[in-house]
Every structure is written in structure tokens, then in C-alpha cells.
């Protein structure tokens, strides 16, 4: 094996090695820990981009861990979807880390950098693995790190929200294990590709059990994706977390969506007996309600960070409306919107922090406050982030929603999809306009101008996120072509299975 063959393991190995080194250097040499963090993020971005160029032609890279043959050992599978998610994670991590270092939030506790690296390791592993139990293990890795990051900085509000977040996710993990037990008992395998072939041979009397397993698995992923009615944990958690961490968490709900996209066509696709496309009829209405409740929350939110958290729920709903079509065009549109909505959600959290740092005791609440320093620039940034989150031109949200609407027109229940997406967009525009005018146009009478924040470099991270969105809009042709090719690959599970089982068995 030459070095290039080990490429798929690097996104997991780099943060796994960087975390302990950052832990060791944390107390004495802060600068070294920060340097390691940035170096690891940049290295991951480079590896992810190289992987993306290698798989963009449709090749599927299979990496056998410990060189065990495929259905018995664990394999990592790098295809177009995995590479797309890896690039997105590395980009988002770089933005979040930049903001944490510039605003010095990484100094509020000892273990920010190691936890951040372990979080990335869990995310990258979840996107790469081809084994269902291994997916559970990487879910746990990313969740355990996220508990630590969510509580970073501490304080009563964060601890209270943290207890809820941890309890909800523990119940989710228990459900996931039950599903794994069921699926293993029915199919005798945990490799996703192999399971996709073996569900066809499940005996007639076990079909009901298979159906239950499919629905439970979809509920576990829906819990992670914060789909209504399993969304209640999200707003409080994300609004309470440190803004840089909340920005990184923008991808955590997308892990749930990714798992749905990965597992449902592969395991519960065509020919899966009673479990054929079993979550599909539930997913579409749940997605519609998520979009409505999320953007209604944007309309009623009392603070910018709360508004950003609801925007995440709403955008996940919009994304799932597209995914629930399970057609090449709609899934491709959904994947384009997935990249956009992750970056837009992160930008909203970061802009909220920039505002809160300048308004002193007023924080980011949606009420008129003092005239603060750099108000015009911040207002422009908020406008750009709001435009992105609602999906107005010229940023990529508009293109994403346009693609979703266009692909939804081919589906049988297109009326509901169009109605909900257009109405929620309108509601979100009003919601953001209300908060923006309260913050940036009105000024409270007789209150002192708060002191300038320690640094004005905190513009950098949200500006970088917005720049990425602009790039995504400018390169929409290539990006949407890649997304559509990805969707085609995801919806042809037989090819993936053949690649995994023959490549992996060699």
C-alpha cells in the first residue's frame, strides 16, 4: 500500500493525534495549542479537498481497517457524499476555531482545543464509516466531545441546558443500540452495504420487526436532526452554548440528515420487503411542520442567538422537504441547500456574538440599545447573514431554495412543499427585519455607549462564513452539478455495495 491509499483514514487520524498533543501543550504553551488546532484544521481541509477531487469522478474509495475483509471487518467508505461532508466540516471548523481564538472564548476553560479536535474526529468518522455499529461509536465520540464544548465557559444557564441536552441524547443513543440489536438479529451483519443486500432475504414472519427497526432508526436520526416533534432540545442548547461552539454545532443537526440520506436508500431502499422506503411517508409531513415551526420561532424569538437556533430548525425542515422526495433532482437540490444552510446558520450565530460583544449589558436581545461602535458594519453583516438564512438573492440560499422548488414541482405533493417553503421564507424575512430594525435603527434613550470590545478582529470569522456563501453562489453551477452527481450515487446503492464488498474483500 502506498501513502495515497491511506487517505480515507487521515480525516479521523489527524484530529485524533492533534487532540492529545493540544491537551499536553495547553497549560504551559497556549500558543502551541492554538497553532496545533489551526494546523490540524488546515490539514483536514487539504485532505478533504484531495479526497473530493479523487472521488468526484464517481470512484468509491474503500479502506479496510486492520486489513480485515469487508463484511467482517470495519470499512471506511469515501464517496462523493462523504467527501462533500468532510470539506464542509473542515471549512466550518476553521471558521469556528478562528472566532473562538479571536474572541478569546477558548481561554474560558482548559480543554477547548482538545475537545474541539475530538468533536472533529467524531464528525469525520461518522461521515466516513461504512459500518452501522461504527456509526454509533462515532456518534458517541462526537456527542461526548459536544457535551464538553457545550458546557465550555459554564454558568447556571449553560449547565441547565446541558443537563437536558445530555439526557435527550442518552435516550437517543439507547434507542440507536436497540435498533442495532434488531437489525443484527434480523440480518446477521452490521456492514451497511452487506445489510442492504441481506434485508431482502429476511423471513416473512420477521417483516414486522424489520419495519419497526427501520422506523426506529429513522426516529433516532430525526432526533439528531431536530425534526419536529423531536426538536425541543435544540433552541435552548444552541442559544446557551458559546457562540463559536454553536457555530460548529450548525453541522450537528446535519449529521442526522446525512445519516438518513446514507442509510435509508442503502438499507431500506428498493426490495427491502415491508421496510421498503419505510420512513418516507413520515418524513415529508415532519419536514413541513419543522419548516413552519422553525421559521415561526425566527419570527417570535427574543434574542439573536435564539433566532439563529430556530433558523437552524427551519432550514433543516426545508432541507428535509427536498430529501423526502428521494429523487435524484430533489436530493441533489437538498445537498446543495445542506452546505448553504450549515454555513448560513453558523454565520447567524457569529454575527449574534459580534453584536452581543458590542452592546454591553444589552447582549443580543432584540430590543433597542445604545449606539455602539461599528454599528454600520455589523448591520451590513447581519443583513447579509439574514439574506442567506431566508434565501433571498444574491447569496446561495436563493439558488438552493430555487433548486428545491424546481425539483419539488415534479413530485406528487408539490403544492404542500411550495406553499410551506414560500410562506416560511416570507415569515422569516419579517422576523429578521423586526430584529434588525430594533437593533440597528432604534436607539434607547439616555444610556451610555458601552466600552469598545477588546478587538475588532471578531469581524473576521463571520465575514469568512459570508464569503464562503458568496463563493457557493458564484460557483453554483459546479456545486449543484456535484450535488446532483452525489445524489445519483447515493440513490444507486447496488454500485456502492458492489464496490464495498468486492474492494473490501480483496
Amino acid at each position, binding site marked *: 500500500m502506498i501513502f495515497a491509499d491511506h487517505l480515507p483514514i487521515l480525516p479521523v487520524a489527524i484530529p485524533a493525534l492533534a487532540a492529545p498533543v493540544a491537551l499536553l501543550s495547553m497549560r504551559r504553551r497556549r500558543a502551541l495549542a492554538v497553532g496545533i488546532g489551526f494546523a490540524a484544521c488546515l490539514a483536514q481541509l487539504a485532505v478533504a479537498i484531495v479526497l473530493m477531487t479523487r472521488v468526484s469522478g464517481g470512484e468509491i474509495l474503500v479502506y479496510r481497517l486492520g486489513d480485515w475483509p469487508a463484511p467482517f471487518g470495519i470499512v471506511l467508505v469515501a464517496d462523493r457524499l462523504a467527501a462533500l461532508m468532510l470539506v464542509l466540516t473542515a471549512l466550518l471548523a476553521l471558521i469556528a476555531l478562528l472566532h473562538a481564538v479571536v474572541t478569546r472564548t477558548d481561554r474560558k476553560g482548559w480543554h477547548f482545543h482538545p475537545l474541539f479536535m475530538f468533536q472533529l474526529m467524531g464528525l469525520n468518522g461518522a461521515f466516513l464509516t461504512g459500518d452501522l455499529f461504527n456509526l454509533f461509536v462515532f456518534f*458517541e465520540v462526537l456527542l*461526548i466531545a459536544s457535551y464538553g464544548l457545550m458546557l465550555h465557559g459554564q454558568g447556571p444557564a449553560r449547565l441547565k441546558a446541558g443537563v437536558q441536552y445530555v*439526557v435527550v441524547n*442518552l435516550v437517543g443513543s439507547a434507542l440507536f*443500540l436497540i435498533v442495532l440489536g434488531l437489525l443484527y438479529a434480523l440480518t446477521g451483519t452490521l456492514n451497511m452495504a452487506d445489510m442492504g443486500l441481506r434485508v431482502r432475504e429476511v423471513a416473512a414472519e420477521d417483516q414486522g420487526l424489520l419495519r419497526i427497526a427501520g422506523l426506529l432508526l429513522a426516529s433516532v436520526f430525526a432526533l439528531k436532526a431536530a425534526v419536529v416533534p423531536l426538536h425541543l432540545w435544540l433552541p435552548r442548547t444552541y442559544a446557551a452554548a458559546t457562540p463559536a461552539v454553536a457555530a460548529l454545532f450548525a453541522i450537528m443537526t446535519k449529521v442526522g440528515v446525512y445519516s438518513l440520506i446514507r442509510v435509508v436508500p442503502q438499507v431500506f431502499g428498493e426490495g427491502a420487503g415491508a421496510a421498503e422506503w419505510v420512513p418516507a411517508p413520515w418524513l415529508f409531513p415532519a419536514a413541513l411542520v419543522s419548516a413552519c415551526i422553525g421559521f415561526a420561532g425566527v419570527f417570535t424569538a427574543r434574542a439573536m442567538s435564539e433566532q439563529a437556533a430556530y433558523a437552524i430548525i427551519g432550514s433543516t425542515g426545508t432541507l428535509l422537504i427536498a430529501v423526502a422526495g428521494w429523487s435524484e433532482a430533489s436530493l441533489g437540490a437538498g445537498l446543495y441547500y445542506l452546505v448553504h444552510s450549515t454555513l448560513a446558520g453558523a454565520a447567524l450565530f457569529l454575527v449574534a456574538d459580534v453584536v452581543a460583544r458590542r452592546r454591553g449589558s444589552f447582549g443580543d436581545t432584540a430590543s433597542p440599545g445604545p449606539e455602539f461602535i461599528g454599528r454600520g458594519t455589523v448591520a451590513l453583516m447581519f443583513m447579509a447573514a439574514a439574506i442567506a438564512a431566508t434565501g433571498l438573492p444574491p447569496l446561495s440560499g436563493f439558488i438552493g431554495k430555487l433548486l428545491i422548488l424546481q425539483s419539488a414541482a415534479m413530485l406528487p405533493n408539490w403544492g404542500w412543499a411550495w406553499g410551506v417553503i414560500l410562506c416560511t421564507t416570507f415569515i422569516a424575512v419579517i422576523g429578521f427585519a423586526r430584529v434588525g430594525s430594533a437593533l440597528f435603527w432604534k436607539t434607547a434613550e439616555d444610556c451610555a455607549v458601552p466600552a469598545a470590545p477588546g478587538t475588532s478582529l471578531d469581524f473576521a470569522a463571520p465575514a469568512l462564513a459570508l464569503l464562503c456563501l458568496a463563493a457557493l453562489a458564484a460557483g453554483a453551477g459546479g456545486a449543484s452539478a456535484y450535488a446532483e452527481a452525489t445524489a445519483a450515487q447515493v440513490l444507486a446503492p447496488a454500485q456502492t455495495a458492489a464496490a464495498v464488498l468486492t474492494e473490501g474483500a480483496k
Partner: protein
Amino acid sequence: MSYEFLVATAIGVLVAGGIYLALRARTFQVVLGLTLISYAVNLFLFASGRLVLGRPPIWDKAVSQYTDPLPQALVLTAIVITFGMTAFVVILSLRSFLETGSDHVDGDTVPCDTQDGLGAADGEGAER
């Protein structure tokens, strides 16, 4: 009564008790509920390789039937993870109680403290 019925009932009772406790308002009961659920899940995973009595778990030429060793490896992983998570959630809820003076999962100072006759205990927590 068969062996399967016994194991299935035990798992069912554990899950029922766990769900009831996990829906309670105080963190201690919720933690106990989560622990019960994780016991049930571990038993369930263990049983997912089918219940087989008196068979070897690894390859042996002399026999034709085996117990499945893979669920035992899976359940080991699951036990380690849930054990660590239980320890974490205990410390977290203790810390949250000491910082906010309330062990309600909703985090509000709920009036039912006095109904439960636990108002005095909460008062102590708040003073600390």
C-alpha cells in the same frame, strides 16, 4: 415458561421502569431511569445473537451450533460507553444542582417543591 419469555419480560420491565423514571421532573430520578434503560438495552443487545444454551462461542470442529460472539463484543462497547455517560451525567446534574440550587430538569424554580415537602432541602442548596 421458556427462557426467551423470561429474558423478554425482564427487558420489558426494565424499559418500562426506565421510561417512567426518565419522565420524572428531578435529575436524580432521571439518571436512575437512564441507567435502567441502559441495562435493558445491554440485555437486549446480548440477546440479539439469539439465546443459545451450552454452546461454544468460537469455532470448534466437533460441534455444529454456536453462540454468536459478536453481540458480546458489541455489548462490551455499549457497556463502556453507557457507564462513562452515566458517570458524566451524575456529575453534571450534581454541578447543575449546586450552581442553580434546583434539581428540576426544566431549570425553573418550580412551585411543586413545596408540594413535595422538599422545599427545605432546596433552600439549603440555594444557600451554598
